[in-house]
């Protein structure tokens, strides 16, 4: 009985989840927990919403003598149920937020820096030395091949890799440093269930662990000017082996330059 009720309420959800009208297929370590919270919260709130609309329609159309009478105590019971479900939802959600956002990245995390520029994402890997080279705003020259303003005088910058595609190895944490050159951009990867603004003058850090090989859309989620709608990039999650190969290729290319 409980099972069949559960199936009946979940069935429309399953159809939705298969369509393009739901969150895209998840590919990160923390995504299943977020999706579960989203599903349960949406279901509970939708049920509450439908109940309220039924009461409204009954109030409008049901003859008065056919309505059951409720004691005013029910108002407080309804409020208590609502409040308790809010408390439950908040506890689960805050717990998840702490697990994901209030923890440091693992020491062996892949380092990648994301820079938002009107209307382009750049990705930088620190190279073999594991340290990002210095950047100078005065050296920024996108047509000349130095969109981030890497300072050639800093030896750390020599092996830095700058790309238009974000590539990450599967099942390994990535620590993402977010920067913006001009205005605020929103770094949003729906498939990774992650969003964080890149604000000029205020670098910030997030970390994710991709768990599924494949391509994921990166979009800008903070209005940044007339090209906002086309500020997209791709996150390519690959095996560790392919990632190492990709980095090596880029390193050779940057040395040749």
């Amino acid at each position, binding site marked *: 009985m409980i099972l069949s009720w559960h199936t009946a309420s979940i069935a429309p959800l399953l159809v939705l989840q298969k369509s393009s009208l739901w969150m895209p297929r998840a590919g990160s370590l923390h995504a299943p927990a977020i999706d579960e*919270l989203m599903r349960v919260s949406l279901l509970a709130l939708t049920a509450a919403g439908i109940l309220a*609309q039924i009461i409204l329609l009954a109030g409008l159309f049901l003859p008065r003598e056919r309505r059951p009478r*409720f004691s005013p105590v029910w108002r407080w019971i309804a409020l208590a149920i609502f409040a308790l479900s809010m408390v439950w939802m908040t506890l689960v959600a*805050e717990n998840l937020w702490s697990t994901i956002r*209030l923890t440091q990245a693992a020491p062996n995390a892949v380092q990648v820096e994301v820079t938002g520029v009107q209307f382009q994402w750049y990705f930088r890997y620190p190279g073999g030395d594991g340290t990002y080279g210095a950047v100078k705003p005065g050296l920024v020259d996108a047509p000349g091949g130095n969109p981030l303003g890497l300072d050639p005088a800093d030896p750390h910058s020599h092996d830095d890799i700058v790309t238009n595609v974000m590539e990450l190895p599967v099942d390994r944490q990535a620590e993402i440093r977010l920067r913006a050159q001009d205005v*605020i951009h929103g770094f949003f990867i729906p498939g990774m269930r992650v*969003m964080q603004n890149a604000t000029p003058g205020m670098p910030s850090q997030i970390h994710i662990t991709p768990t599924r090989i494949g391509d994921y859309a990166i979009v800008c989620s903070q209005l940044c000017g007339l090209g*906002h709608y086309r500020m997209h990039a791709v996150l390519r999650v690959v095996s560790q082996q392919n990632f190492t190969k990709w980095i090596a290729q880029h390193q050779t290319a940057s040395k040749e330059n």
Partner: protein
Amino acid sequence: MNPATLDPREPCSWLRRYVFTTSHRVVGVQYLLVALAAVVTGALLSLLMRWHLAWADALIPGWGLIKPEDYLALLTLHGTLMIFFVTSAAPQNGLASLILPEQLRGAPPSSTDTNITRSEVRMALPLLNALSVWFTLFALVALLSTPFLPGGAAISGWTSYPPLSSTALAGPGQSYGMDGWLIALALFSVGSLLSAISVVATVITRRLHGMKWMQMPLTAWSWFVAACMMLPAFSILLAACGMLFSDRHFGTSFFFPPVEVMNGIVLHHGAGSPLLWQNLFWFFGHPEVYIAVLPAMGLATTLLATFAGHALAPRTYRTMVAATVAIGLLGFAVWGHHMFVSGMNPYVGRGFGLATIAIAIPSAVEVIQWLAAIFAGGLRRATPLLFILGFVSLFITGGLSGPILAQPILDAYLHNTFFVVAHFHLIMGMAVSFALFAAIYYWFPLLTGKCMSERLGRWHFWLSLIGAYAVFFPMHFAGLAGEPRQYAQLTGTAGFLQNLLPLQRFITIAAFLLVAAQLLFFWNVLNSWIRGEKSSPNPWDAETLEWESPGDPSASHVRA
């Protein structure tokens, strides 16, 4: 409007009677006319946006192709018009001026007369109240002139985050258009502050002799609490606009980062912070939501009692007043929920998440009381009541997605997606509009002495309700799919966005129908005004004082 229902003390010149006057009713109608100009413009602009979003290559008659920057200018104007000039100016400043003094039927503090007639009723500080509508009108003119300035209208949305809004280098419209936007908002803030001072003073000093605070109608309570919220909120907005203007022109650095590269040009500034604007703007912006919706909530409570034919039970009344005041206070503690992904400290995000859930409780108290009143039945099924039921329905649907967005971890997926657009259009756009319609259908007989057509009213209600849900409910799914708002087109390399085109096309068609349905309302207003049946002095058997005929001894009923 029949001049007999206006302030008879005014001299007879048309200009003195309808334009340069401090009569609270005329000022109220002036506010509604400003809001009408804004809502018609804002709705037409939104149709252009919807058209372009669904069919990006379409040539709009009389316009041609809408460019991405045009789309952003349209959405900036649409948001600014609707949030400030419609949902804030009409239900709060406008309706309060129109109705509040008559509901309180108050004498000047110096008078000892306990029998005040309608013609002697006025706002406290009537000149401030009258000035406020002029500031609002000038603000509207300033805003609507921005598309005609060199570079066009501002393109940074109704929140205008710097650095996008702090330098002309950031894009077309960010030069004169942005200055115009700031001037318009500053003028609007001054107008709203004057109006709020006048409303607060009226409630404190102009209540009928013997009317205690806990005998005021719920509408008066909501206008009072909203006005109290406006004083700090619009002061902060005014200051923030001044600071941004100063950053743009006087070399200050409140919101600039120390260095930025804009369009290949290196800009050096002092060490400001773009986050400061977000804090200031949302410290205004979130109370603003409650400033818009509190009058609607008070109206719902009062009208549900009126149409049930009885006064509110004392316990229900006290509960509703407490919930209104709680929402007013908590409204100032939740602004950070707009900034979960801004780079704000994630610990702070937890606090704002909790405060936001806390504000859901007094809102739920009000909703449960409304539902109980509706279910108890015996409601007279007239058009104003239908629109109040529509308000409750949309308030619930829009409100229930609030607790989802209040959770930082869920908001870090849904922030700035169409899910948020669905949420605030349902609760702020549609719910508040339905309450405004209810107010107009309800008070129309008071202002014109005529009845509005019930039949047209019912058609208007059902078409608008279906339209509102058809336009805004599907947006939840676009948001869940990850579609960011403020995208001019769904082309580009992120292919998942193109899958949402059929949904967006459906929404566009529904939006055209929703706007078309409003023609019924305008026809009803005009036709009823000219040819409508004469109304009785108190057609809804209301117990609030604005319906008592002039000269009535009116100490008997003071609450609804």
